[in-house]
């Protein structure tokens, strides 16, 4: 039985710039940053999620990625075609204000949706994320 999803891939056009974006703007922490020859293993994650991370993969040709495919992939990322997934927040509108002030580019402002409040932003390479505050994300509540 598959239990968890632990690593997801985010293709980035510049690993140094991406590292700065994810840590300094989004507030993620670096989990791994090591070099293996020309290969750089760089992972980041929200501090509140100990058992999962995003792999910030450079777009470059390798044993299983032809140069032509790498070029196509870069074009898709930079065009904003690829989605990176959903990032959950407890307050979408607050984060929208904070991230906008830090220079994060939002594709769509926070909107009330059937499932909560959602905004869309792009990372520094062009990958789009949903920033979602789901209904029911609440603080401590008393129960008698």
């Amino acid at each position, binding site marked *: 039985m598959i239990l968890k999803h632990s*690593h997801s*891939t985010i293709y980035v056009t510049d690993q140094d710039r991406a590292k700065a974006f994810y840590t300094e703007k989004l507030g993620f922490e670096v989990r*791994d940053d*090591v070099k*293996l*020859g*020309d*290969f750089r*293993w760089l992972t980041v994650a929200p*501090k*509140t999620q*100990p*058992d999962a991370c995003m*792999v910030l*993969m450079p777009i*470059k040709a*390798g*044993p*299983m*990625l032809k140069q032509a495919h790498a070029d196509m992939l870069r074009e898709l990322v930079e065009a904003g075609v690829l989605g990176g997934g959903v990032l959950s927040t*407890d*307050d979408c509108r*607050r984060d929208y204000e904070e991230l906008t002030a830090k220079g994060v580019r939002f594709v769509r402002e926070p909107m009330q949706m059937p499932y909560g409040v959602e905004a869309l932003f792009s990372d520094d390479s062009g990958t789009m994320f949903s920033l979602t505050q789901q209904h029911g*994300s*609440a*603080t*401590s*509540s*008393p*129960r*008698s």
Partner: protein
Amino acid sequence: MRYVVVMLTGAALRRLLRARDQLHAEVQRGPTLDELAATAGMSRAFLSRSFVTTFGAAPHQYLSHLRLEHAKRVLAGGASVTDACFEVGFESVGTFSSMFHRRVGISPRAWQRHTRAVVQGLGLPALWIPGCFLLKYVQEYSPP
């Protein structure tokens, strides 16, 4: 009336993260629960409950996990079990070894033998880098 602690949000979550960051920064010394509570500006009980809700483990369990992961890296680098034990903040080799065995399933020495064989045989860092990433980017890598 009793309170059900759900995941903290906003300013309270940020204060909790400060305590969590203190654990990371002082993994060898191991801050006390009182110190962590002071850092977060919370009572010991509320901090403990919030920690479990947010990170899935109580502060002392979280610290043990950090120490264990640190110990793995130190052992993979060739340090003796005794050196690894003290390096990560344990005061007793017996306690360290039994906890390692309980959590990892094998003794520190056995883990070191196994890992160094893989690390040295394939020239890989002692890190969890999934093969799907290595296959794509590292020419020399081939699964054992």
